[in-house]
């Protein structure tokens, strides 16, 4: 009897709980359109999670203060429910579930990093909730046939293709020798695929193809091989740790290559941390403030940079810029759909074709942004002050590419 009573109480408690949560189910509260986001505010991605959140908030405030979103003759404002995913993919998936099932969120924003986006995408997909994400670049996000995922940034395999093309161009169109060192994680391996494709396309030869273990702090062996084989281009990608380790050891071992192409130079504050040793490193980035894209909310990159700095006290990295762009995409889609119905908004999202301060945005059927090229910048120093200067695409180049890199003995 006791057990039966207990079960009845238990079941009714759950029923009660469920009924209250269905009451709180709401995608729009008053004049507010509620978006949901799980962002890393603690754990190993907390720095970039913070950039993501600041980027989202900056755009929300801007859109709200400039007239909000007009849907069906009524004006709405954006509001975001945040949860901290602790930089943990399991937690991120749980929180996405919670945002959708308990908080009734019908429109999602992405988390920080490819790994966490990969954890959340199956949840939003299953519940048919559209998600505009700004920080998941992994190629595998766009090969699974997701219908509700839209990424404003370029995919990881596009990061360094441009660099290989540039090196071939500088070599008079002739094939080159490439040495590569990539960390063994999803993102870096995607970057590697792009480089391998570019090598095939240009007929270039890959002489070293090292896969760096995640635990590795030391690239000395790879660099000794590079020194011995003298390739034209050295490509390194392994997040901030890889970028900082590579520059430190290239300088220590005096490795001379004609071109050094990397990722994560800005995330690791390479120019600041390594100063002159990082000079001439060529870096792929999603965005740079000097690009001349425009929109009516933020003006252009320079203006965005200035106003973001005034609000948050630091210069916006591209993680913040692309996060802000995600909100512009949402606003545009709501107004074109002229409806709050999530499926109509999803269809409007898929037809997005717009320019933002961050770049042009147009989605492929897989949800990948195909309208925005990657930019390459080179670290350049004047005295002891080192800065990132855009060198490609040439349309936006603020400085001429230095190629080949001067030898260590001449520096």
């Amino acid at each position, binding site marked *: 009897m006791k057990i039966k009573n207990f079960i009845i109480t238990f079941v009714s408690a759950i029923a009660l709980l469920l009924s209250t949560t269905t009451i709180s189910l709401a995608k729009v509260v008053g004049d507010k359109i509620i978006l949901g986001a799980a962002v890393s505010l603690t*754990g190993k991605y*907390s720095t970039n999670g913070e950039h993501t959140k600041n980027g989202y908030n900056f755009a929300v405030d801007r859109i709200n203060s400039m007239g909000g979103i007009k849907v069906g003759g009524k004006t709405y404002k954006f509001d975001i429910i945040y949860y901290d995913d602790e930089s943990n993919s399991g937690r991120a998936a749980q929180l996405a579930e919670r945002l959708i099932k308990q908080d009734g969120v019908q429109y999602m924003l992405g988390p920080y990093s490819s790994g966490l986006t990969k954890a959340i995408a199956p949840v939003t997909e299953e519940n048919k909730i559209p998600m505009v994400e700004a920080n998941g670049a992994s190629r595998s996000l766009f090969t699974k046939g997701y219908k509700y995922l839209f990424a404003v940034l370029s995919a990881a395999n596009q990061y360094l293709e441009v660099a290989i093309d540039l090196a071939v161009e500088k070599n008079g169109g002739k094939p080159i020798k490439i040495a590569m060192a990539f960390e063994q994680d999803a993102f870096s391996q995607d970057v590697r695929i792009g480089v391998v494709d570019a090598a095939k396309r240009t007929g270039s030869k890959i002489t070293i193809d090292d896969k760096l273990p995640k635990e590795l702090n030391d690239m*000395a*062996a790879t660099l*000794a*091989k590079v020194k011995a084989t003298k390739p034209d281009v050295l490509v390194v990608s392994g997040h901030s740790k890889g970028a*900082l*380790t590579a520059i430190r050891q290239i300088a220590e*071992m005096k490795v001379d290559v004609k071109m050094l192409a990397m990722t994560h130079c800005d995330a690791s504050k390479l120019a600041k941390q390594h100063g002159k040793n990082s000079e001439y490193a060529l870096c792929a980035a999603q965005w740079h403030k000097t690009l001349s894209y425009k929109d009516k909310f933020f003006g252009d990159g320079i203006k965005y940079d200035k106003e973001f700095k005034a609000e948050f006290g630091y210069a916006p990295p591209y993680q913040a810029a692309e996060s802000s762009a995600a909100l512009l995409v949402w606003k545009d889609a709501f107004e074109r759909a002229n409806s709050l119905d999530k499926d109509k908004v999803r269809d409007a999202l898929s037809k997005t074709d717009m320019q933002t301060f961050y770049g042009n945005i147009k989605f492929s059927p897989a949800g990948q942004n195909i309208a925005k090229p990657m930019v390459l910048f080179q670290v350049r120093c004047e005295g002891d002050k080192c800065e990132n200067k855009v060198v490609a695409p040439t349309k936006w180049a603020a400085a001429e590419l230095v190629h080949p890199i001067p030898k260590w003995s001449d520096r």
Partner: protein
Amino acid sequence: MPPLIGGIFFMDLLIFQAPILMVQASLDGILLGILFALIAYGMALQWGVMNIINIAQGELVIMGGYIAYFMYMTGIHPGFGIIVSPIIMFFVGWGLYKLVINKVVDRDLFISILATFGISILTQQLMNFIFGSDVVVAQSNFGTTMLFDGMVTLPNAKIFAAIVSIVFAIGLVAYMRKSKLGRAIRATAQNARAAKILGVDTEKVYAATFGINAALCGVAGSLIAITFTLHPYVGLPYTVRSFMIVIVAGLGNLPGVALSGMGLGVFEEFADYILGTEFRIGSVFMLLVFILVYRRFKLSRKREYLK
């Protein structure tokens, strides 16, 4: 040609075509190994004395590194970290002992592993909270030593790290032999109960041992700040590596720790050239398995003989 076979074939050729790479690999491995051996020294010491496997070893190293980094940020040369860091870390270790470790010291190994695992998570989050989750480096500007016409390069920071490690290791051995506390530590390691009966304050000995271990980690950490990179979450590889070095050397075998540290370092570098970078860490673990199986085999033969 499949990439794996191609890779092996090519790298094989490279290291034999350019034998100078063998010199580079050996020197790199030895320098790397000496630094790891210093961390393993601390682990061997407290493992031997207190029978505790310290999972938070790597976090203590990183914490020591952040102390040197903090000095670097305030304009002091990070090289001085090797003096400041061990002093601070000694008290951190002492405090940790008084707070947590003394409650698990005579319990079974599993409890101590859990406790130190907890400490490791806590310190990671704490360092993340204080220093942020960015990867950071401290610049020593020590320059580079070139050998064989620039074919072999040795970063002076790594040479500095190796020399400092050796000095501290020798200092530790001398201290253990000559000082009163050193004798007390050795006595406690041999038989804690007997030492207690003979008037050794084992509680104090344990606290000092854990403090010395943390101090050694502090030295190693400040060397890592100028040779590698720092990040709140990169402690684990240092724990695992020092654990391996101690396993290979055997407990209570301090010269063995130095040798096994260097041996594993050189083995790892050669594995990188011959098998490829992706097999580097895996091959070290394979070697560990091989050594453990071999040891067991040898022991069982001995046991049979005794029967």
